[in-house]
């Protein structure tokens, strides 16, 4: 949420860490508000948070919160975890099972008198709507309530930056939305950067704001969800963001007059290829790129359709049909194998079975081009 301070960079991270064969190497700046760290499992998101919190010491780099240097390899600065003043809700929450909700929340507040500590704890419990749970133990409350307690426990210490590792992954959408609302409200009063880790595409879109896409230890894209998800330029982004079909391709013909170009996809059999008409980009014939097509963007027809605006109509044969919940995933061999999503009704109406001859219809603008 853009406030006066939000333009000012508050968390600057630049770090390198080698863990066996895995390498973390990322650099970014996060301002006040939600910063979503998005990536598949194993991309290094948790390691990155651990480095900011001080649980893991990077091999090199620099971590600065506001004007305070938490870590600087070149100056051998490494503030211990307990002194970083970083709020971190780990995936497992790690609420203290032997303490009540109120004692959990009070745990990090040590410098105040007993009554002040209590007041602070009660006020944050109220802010997160869990005041009535204060005498309960974490084992006796629901999952959503535990998430709220974990958040309250981290926020009561007034951290300079908040790290959330898939904090709401296990919750139902309505509960999730309410907790996010409370967190946003809190964040409006306390303008600190929130680094919010998720591997859920829905969550990225729902939370809005700034996204950092992480892949194999690197930040490979950043921007608004719209920028990152709708116009992916890198294959890794596409895989993360829902392109079921990704193909190597080379530019075959450029039709400047039509605003399109024809790309050649090497076929699954040697010396065969498939031609696709794609949007025009600045590229020379012969240059290599990748094409991403969502399975839901492809139409199937059992007779060759005519009079369509779609420029790509390709003959193929159904290889397999697999039911996934309420949709059918069809694999169609049209020189290359493509995955296509159909509704149950569509499969029935077209009487599709493995072996059926079909036509694939793909709009030019459903072909997303990515740099290789």
């Amino acid at each position, binding site marked *: 949420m853009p406030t006066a301070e939000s333009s000012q960079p508050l968390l600057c991270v630049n770090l390198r860490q080698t863990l066996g064969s895995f390498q973390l190497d990322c650099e970014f700046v996060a301002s006040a508000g939600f910063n979503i760290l998005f990536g598949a499992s194993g991309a290094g998101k948790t390691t990155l948070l651990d480095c900011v*919190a001080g*649980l893991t010491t990077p091999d090199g780099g620099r971590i600065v919160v506001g004007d305070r240097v938490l870590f600087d390899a070149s100056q051998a600065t490494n503030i*211990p*975890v*307990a*002194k*970083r*003043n*970083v*709020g*971190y809700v*780990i*995936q*497992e*929450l*790690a*609420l*203290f*099972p*032997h303490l009540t909700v109120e004692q959990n929340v009070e*745990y*990090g507040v*040590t410098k105040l008198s007993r009554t002040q500590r209590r007041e602070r704890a009660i006020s944050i419990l109220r802010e997160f709507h869990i005041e009535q749970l204060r005498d309960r*133990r*974490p*084992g*006796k409350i629901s999952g959503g309530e*535990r998430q709220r307690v974990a958040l309250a*426990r*981290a926020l009561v*210490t007034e951290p300079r930056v908040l790290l959330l590792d898939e904090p709401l992954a*296990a919750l139902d959408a309505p509960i999730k939305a309410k907790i996010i609302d409370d967190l946003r409200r809190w964040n409006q009063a306390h303008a600190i950067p929130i680094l919010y880790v998720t591997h859920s595409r829905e969550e990225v879109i729902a939370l809005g704001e700034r996204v950092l896409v992480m892949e194999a230890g690197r930040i490979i894209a950043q921007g608004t969800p719209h920028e990152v998800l709708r116009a992916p330029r890198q294959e890794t982004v596409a895989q993360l963001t829902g392109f079921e079909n990704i193909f190597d391709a080379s530019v075959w013909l450029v039709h400047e007059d039509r605003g399109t170009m024809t790309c050649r996809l090497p076929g699954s059999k040697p010396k065969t290829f498939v031609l696709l008409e794609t949007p025009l980009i600045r590229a020379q014939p012969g240059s290599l790129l990748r094409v991403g097509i969502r399975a839901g963007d492809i139409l199937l027809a059992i007779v060759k359709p005519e009079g369509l605006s779609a420029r790509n109509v390709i003959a193929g044969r159904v290889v397999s049909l697999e039911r996934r919940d309420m949709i059918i995933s069809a694999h169609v061999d049209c020189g290359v194998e493509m995955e296509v999503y159909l509704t149950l009704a569509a499969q029935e109406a077209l009487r599709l079975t493995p072996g059926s001859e079909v036509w694939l219809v793909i709009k030019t603008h459903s072909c997303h081009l990515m740099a290789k």
Partner: protein
Amino acid sequence: MAWKVKLINWEAFRLTIELAVVVSAILFVIGLPLAYWIAFSRWRWKFLVEAVVALPIVLPPTVLGFYVLVALGSRSPLGRMWQSLTGHTLAFTFTGLVIGSILYSLPFAVQPFAASFSSVNRKLLAASAILGASPLRTFFRVVVPLSAPGLVTGLALSFAHTMGEFGVVLMVGGNIPGVTRTVSIDIYDQVQAANYAAANAMALLLLIFCFVVLALVYALNRANVLSTVSSREWRRTSPAG
């Protein structure tokens, strides 16, 4: 009534309890940091220390007793130092007995302590540090409360083990009434003198006493709802559980 007094050697019984209380109390104090170190240290040679701590479990008490006796005697530097400080040797004294018993019962305190420390979820320790707690505060606010059953077990085992020891006491303490003659030695004496009734009385007393102590400990651990339930709760809160 006179024969009854003879049957049970209350002096030996009192001495044994005193020894067990002193030894388990000292073991609790030195066992906690030692167990903490064993549970959390990443030193590569740690296993050597663990092996040394476990030695008394496998060594015959006479071997341990022999070396303690040698170490406490007036020929060793330690024994000489003690003698110059106090004017008498450690061997065949109650203090000597305490030292021997501490070494003998060490694993029975340290191993349950270390095992329960190790079983505390490391994420809780990380959470505590993130919330600004020092390692000492983490130890007393998180590690100790969540290890309570293990601590009680270690304390009870070291107490019970000291109550029943024989070899080390015989080697280090000898058999001085009121100073080093414990129940187990008294029983041995009675059997040697063919006073089977007295031996039986003492043996039965020790048996019942130890049973009651252990039963109390296990009942306490079970009633310790706080720690047992909460360790279950923790398992429930973690997604892996």
